[in-house]
């Protein structure tokens, strides 16, 4: 069956062999042909030698969610042959390195096998072990190009751009691509029935991962201090921040830096540094993942209670404990919302793709400073580390940072008094001063009991007065966080509610469910605390399917706690085994609930 611009393939290799550049080349080539494409990197927590996969989905309809149905498997890792063969859709194809014979037990009658002697060809063409291994990857990219009909001109242009400054590498790459491309064109009917044709659907888009986008958001919002401890899958946030700062934030003459990046001794220290920097008046942030948030809990409570801004980017991975560090999950929803001992409640922002990661990263700094409290950008590994096709990013040059109620030296000079924790205008947000500015602004920041004047207290009423005001302040943020995305379907009486990266799977699932006559209204929460719109949506629908990626239905719990909507109205649909959610998870989950109710 011919399928144009609507199929998925998967490349199985061992990590540390250089397959990433080949996979990147394939992604970019498809994108430049104007065809919507997404890639999911399924990698081990390891540097060299363990199985790794790269999944590419081509979708003329623009669906970006992961699909577990593969039309073509590029099986180049003998260690995973059996698993990889099993994953091919019936009627699909499997390309393998025919330099060695494939065991008969791996043959499936419903799959077409395409043997390409990649190692043999590369050994004959290239010298040295390293180049032979690297070029074998480029050669499979060439073979794929032939099989699925990539435009050779696009590939040639991409290769030239990439190796413009390295002539020797350019020659090797061009040679390797030709090896694969020419071989499949000679030996198989190319292109296969599943293939690409040029479109014009990517003109206004980019391919970007969410960690890069979040780092860019931090740069644009004016963050000057970044503190961090390396952790998968958040590491590339700070790496990207550093490279953007080196590009945009150095004095043109002296090359001195207008930023400071502190690689801390652990996540505790990283957040401590952010709190110190924010207290001193800088925009500061720390990127981390769940284990880091666990360690930061004490400091999160300090920032909440002492009312110090802090931006924390949580690129979630699977938990509990070390979990699977290179797999995705939404397992930190509740921890971020209620982190630290005592009564706390935190402002959270939930991006669904890299574009929102960019916008919300910038927004997080405004909210942290306006509300003088920690703000979490709750991303995940899928959003953070995979390449997504999203509309181009834009920045409003009229933007000015919202520094909140920070008093200047002039304002302090005029002031007759200044009390750090006094609510002067009823919004629950007190005035703030920075060290080094004016003697009138001095106050004592403390995580111990304090009254509204900033003094230490063990007085019951004084203590409670401050704690209640902070609760009011944070509730006020419900109106300032990004509002939910709502999509209504005529005649729908049921709702589909989700968060973050599940968006892509839900969009696709709703289209498919509609074809089965199941009409749903849609709501995606984008910020916490949840506002009235969320509560009203839940109340308006007979039943709401709450779609999320964790075992314990954390989003559903938060919706119950925050909106008071009874649990009977909230049916949980979950997938949490580590891969990004697919439409079929949503569809089967919704259908199972409906069948049970019927």
């Amino acid at each position: 069956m011919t399928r144009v611009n609507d199929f998925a393939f998967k490349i199985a290799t061992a990590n540390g062999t250089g397959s990433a550049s080949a996979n990147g080349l394939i992604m970019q080539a498809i994108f430049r042909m104007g065809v919507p494409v997404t890639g999911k990197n399924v990698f081990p927590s390891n540097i060299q030698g363990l199985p790794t996969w790269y999944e590419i989905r081509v979708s003329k309809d623009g669906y970006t969610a992961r699909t577990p149905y593969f039309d073509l498997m590029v099986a180049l890792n003998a260690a995973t042959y059996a698993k990889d063969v099993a994953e091919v859709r019936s009627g699909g194809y499997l390309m393998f390195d025919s330099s060695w014979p494939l065991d008969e037990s791996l043959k499936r009658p419903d799959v077409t096998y395409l043997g390409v002697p990649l190692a043999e060809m590369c050994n004959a063409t290239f010298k040295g072990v390293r180049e032979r291994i690297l070029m074998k990857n480029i050669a499979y990219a060439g073979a794929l190009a032939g099989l699925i009909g990539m435009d050779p001109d696009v590939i040639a242009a991409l290769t030239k751009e990439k190796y413009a400054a390295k002539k020797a590498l350019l020659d090797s790459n061009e040679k390797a691509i030709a090896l694969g491309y020419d071989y499949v064109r000679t030996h198989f009917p190319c292109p296969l029935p599943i293939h690409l044709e040029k479109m014009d659907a990517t003109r206004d888009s980019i391919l970007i991962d969410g960690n890069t986008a979040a780092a860019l958001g931090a740069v644009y919002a004016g963050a000057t201090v970044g503190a961090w401890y390396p952790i998968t899958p958040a590491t590339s946030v700070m790496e990207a921040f550093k490279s953007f700062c080196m590009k945009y934030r150095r004095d043109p003459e002296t090359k001195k830096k207008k930023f400071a990046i502190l690689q801390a001794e652990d996540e505790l220290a990283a957040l401590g540094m952010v709190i110190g920097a924010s207290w001193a008046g800088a925009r500061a942030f720390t990127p981390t993942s769940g284990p880091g948030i666990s360690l930061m809990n004490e400091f999160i409570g300090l920032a909440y209670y002492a009312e110090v801004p802090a931006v924390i980017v949580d690129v979630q991975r699977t938990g509990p404990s070390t979990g699977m560090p290179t797999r995705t999950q939404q397992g930190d929803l509740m921890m971020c919302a209620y982190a630290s001992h005592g009564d706390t409640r935190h402002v959270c922002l939930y991006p669904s793709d890299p574009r929102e990661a960019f916008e919300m990263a910038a927004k997080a700094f405004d909210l942290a400073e306006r509300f003088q409290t920690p703000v979490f950008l709750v991303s995940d590994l899928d959003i953070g580390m995979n390449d997504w096709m999203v509309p181009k990013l834009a920045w409003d040059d009229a933007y000015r940072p919202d520094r909140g109620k920070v008093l200047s030296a002039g304002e302090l000079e005029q002031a007759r008094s200044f009390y750090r924790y006094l609510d002067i205008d009823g919004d629950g947000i007190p005035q703030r001063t920075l060290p080094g500015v004016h003697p009138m602004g001095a106050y004592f920041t403390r995580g111990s009991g304090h009254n509204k004047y900033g003094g230490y207290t063990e007085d019951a009423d004084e203590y409670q007065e401050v704690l209640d005001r902070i609760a009011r302040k944070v509730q006020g943020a419900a109106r300032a966080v990004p509002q939910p995305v709502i999509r209504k379907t005529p005649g729908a009486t049921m709702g589909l509610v989700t968060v973050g990266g599940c968006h892509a799977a839900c969009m696709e699932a709703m289209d498919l469910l509609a074809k089965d006559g199941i009409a749903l209204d849609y709501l995606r929460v984008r910020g916490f605390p949840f506002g009235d719109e969320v509560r009203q949506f839940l109340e308006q629908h007979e039943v709401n399917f709450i779609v999320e990626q964790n075992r314990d239905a954390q989003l559903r719990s938060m919706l119950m706690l925050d909106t008071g909507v009874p649990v009977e109205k909230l049916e949980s649909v979950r997938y949490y085994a580590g891969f990004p959610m697919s439409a079929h998870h949503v569809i089967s989950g919704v259908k199972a609930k409906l069948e049970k109710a019927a």
Partner: protein
Amino acid sequence: MTYITKPTVHHPSLKKNALGLTRRDYEGAITTLCAGCGHDSITAAIIHAFWEMDIAPHKVAKLSGIGCSSKTPAYFLREAHGFNSVHGRMPAVATGANAANGDLIMIGVSGDGDSLSIGLGQLCHAIRRNVNMLYVLENNGVYGLTKGQFSASADPGTTSKKGEANTMEAIDGALLALTLGATFVARSFSGDKDQLVPIIQAGIAHRGFAFVDVISPCVTFNDHEGSTKSYAYTREHAVEVVHADFVPLREPIETTYAEGTVQRVTLHDGSVVKLRKVDKDYDATNRDAAYAAIRDHQRKGEVMTGLLYLSPDSKDVHDQNETVAGSLVSLPHDQLCPGNDALQKLQQQFR
């Protein structure tokens, strides 16, 4: 922490510094520590040091962790921003504040539990980074606020108030700092203001992490016979090997001591530390010699005091980072945000 507000009325005859401020202007709230606490003497030395150096109090940021010692920033420099953070984590907060605004004059006050147990890691890394701050470790060998447990600086054989003996080795803050590459290491005694004030001043002027371990007896839980951190023990066993005299930039440097026993070290701001040496062969710019000398005195049951080590070429966090001069906080947004044109251009590489 608990405190009682102090009246700010001054006697007109009080001596004024170059800013026209009296020592009273450098005070804070009234202490709530036990009467006779060594920490209060250190507070007095800090007040004196800042006043004498003509530093405007609001240019200072004072930070601490948790514990008796960490209460003390409330008791000095009321016009400075204070930050009583969480237990053992003051170094990280200070590092961040310093990264944001390198113009702040920073003092951190900590204790032996805060620095050598729960916060040992943070202290080590602040030393490694050479954060530009004065770090005062008020060292009494016990946990005071929780009523007398041994801390990590309690010497082996020390007995608690209840008579229980400590069996574990002590962590010596000065030796630790030397090992980690500290650029300024001093030890003093809370009861020796003449020695402590110039050390604090040199520490403030030093560009980098100035580690000052101050033996500060706990009158309530660790001032008995059997304690090596008591007033009596320290007075008897403290040996001053190097006395620091701090000479601010504006004052002429007069040699008041015989040549050959004075070692001069010029700090980054031009001020000078004169080290008057009791032991003629002691070289305070030699890390290995300092380490060996401290160990030698320890073997003899003595506590070596003074400015023990000072690196003449200290590079702080901002020197290492190559940060622009001044404070990152004061940079205008248009210098930080590349703008939409740059964003559109950048995105060519994402296609």
